[in-house]
């Protein structure tokens, strides 16, 4: 599946590393990534990830990170071809 996520993060120097580490370790491949700091002190992160695993395997773990304030699923779609075929 392909999942399009929109995260709101607390601005901390290492917050991006935390998100990337959890995403990799839980078995999701990042195919697109965009980040910006906004004026009210948050970091907005949009990412598209691919995995055979259910989204909750990632979203629940991201939500557990102390510096992740929101993890929204923007869209979900089927992978058109199977990875590692």
């Amino acid at each position, binding site marked *: 599946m392909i999942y399009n996520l929109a995260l709101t993060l607390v601005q901390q120097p*290492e917050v991006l*590393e*935390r998100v990337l*580490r959890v995403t990799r*370790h839980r078995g999701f491949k990042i195919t697109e990534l965009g980040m910006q700091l906004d004026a009210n002190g948050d970091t907005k992160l949009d990412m598209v990830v691919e995995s055979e695993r*259910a989204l*909750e*395997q990632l979203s*629940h*773990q991201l*939500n*557990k*990170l*102390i510096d992740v304030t929101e993890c929204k699923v923007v869209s979900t779609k089927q992978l058109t071809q199977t990875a590692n075929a």
Partner: protein
Amino acid sequence: MEQGQKIRGADAVIKVLAAHGVTTVFGYPGGAIMPIYDALYGAPVEHLLSRHEQGAAFAAVGYARASGKTGVCFATSGPGATNLVTSLADALLDSVPLVAITGQVSTAVIGTDAFQEIDVLGMSLSCTKHSFMVTDVNELIPTLYRAFEIAASGRPGPVLVDIPKDIQIALLDYKTPLLAISPEPQASEQQIEAAKVLLSEAKKPMLYVGGGVGMAGAVDQLRGFIDVTGVPSVATLKGLGSIPHDDAGYLGMLGMHGGKAANIAVQECDLLIVVGARFDDRVTGRLATFAEHAKVLHLDIDVAELGKLRRPDVAIAGDLRQILPAIAQSLEIAPWQAEVASLKANHQWNYERPGELIFAPKMLNRLANKLPEDSVIACDVGQHQMWVAQHMWFRRPEDHLSSAGLGTMGFGLPAAIGAKVARPDACVVAVSGDGSFMMNVQELTTIKRRQIPLKILLIDNQKLGMVKQWQQLFFEERFSETDLSGNPDFVTMASAFDIPGRTITQGDEVEQALDEMLNATGPFLLHVRIDDAHNVWPLVPPGACNRDMMDEMEKQT
């Protein structure tokens, strides 16, 4: 707290610890944490010097697990911090509240490869619940308060605070911060109703109890739930002690080295009530066949565990102390209770073995029956750990300290030290194996230094026994690097640390030797040589269904 008087960051650290009721910290000094050790000098917070940072952090873990309080450890930058990694990972996998404070090189030289500099914050990401590096002295106190709050709230875990040396010596006004408390998940009425319906429809309900019950302080509520419902139960390694061992429906540990009755009953049940447990692979065996006909009611504080490995029919995230009484109701399950009772009666442990040698399971069972009411067993990892879980019994989960999730050899001795500090009146016994014991053997010095009167039961088969067992069963008896016959003379070694001890080799010596150990006023090491042919049974082979347990097949040599 006095206002308006400037103090050093290092002094503030000690004040925050005292404000959190911390009476003992475990650690090892070094260059980048010297100001904090200076602040500690003469302070009301006691420090227990370990001889390796891993030992310090495991002592803090033992302290936390035996007392339910948050453990605290100190280490310096670089190697001090890297030595903490294993213990932090252990605390993460076993959900132990721990605050680790590390010194760091000064902010001006961070990122220059300074002496004893390593990126501790980066290193901490995979082995802590959360971590901080303090770069502004005004953030120091709020950060430490946050660290304590995060470590103990929700699903507990280790939190690391990295404090550069210049922050430790910078001056600040001590102010108690106002903290926002993290909201905990709450059970809804619909969830409670749905759970009650599942329970009332079940003909063969089974409780699968994990470490979360003890961590949540919900042991009494769990026992109350069992009293009301009469539901039979099994426990994980960390769940042992949650249910009274003589409860009629309690079948002991399940999983890879679980009892036969426990595993069969779980396979037979039609409703699995999972309480503070997480479907670990050592519990489930082949996941697809685990309790395959059962519906699942999953209760846990951590939302991420609900549906992670097994889709629940009803899941409730929240405080077990509230959920368990809310869903308790009397059930009509007499035929199932009778079936479980018969399973239990048909699968009792057999402690009779031919020969004069010592049978470790029998010895451990004797030890459990001899221990005073206030006792803690801290064990290491391997065959002896599984024998402890199978053949000993515990009054409360905090009486049994075992490295469950990470399976860290070297855990037992330092964890026992921490437990004895936390509960000085308890009888604390470190049960170890000849492999594990040597992994943190330097902590014998800690025992000597403080004359900590804990007991060490060292079960010695001159083997890395669990690995040897797998080589025997699954690797065609190719015993690669599992012979430990080069062990030191353990009793002589203990005597070098002023710890008296003795060696026993015969079954008829066990009774008197256990008494001698337990009655010793100071520390004591009982070295028990056992037959290396004994393995841990039953065993669910890796990847097999829990129903397919292998039985005893002793090596005939």
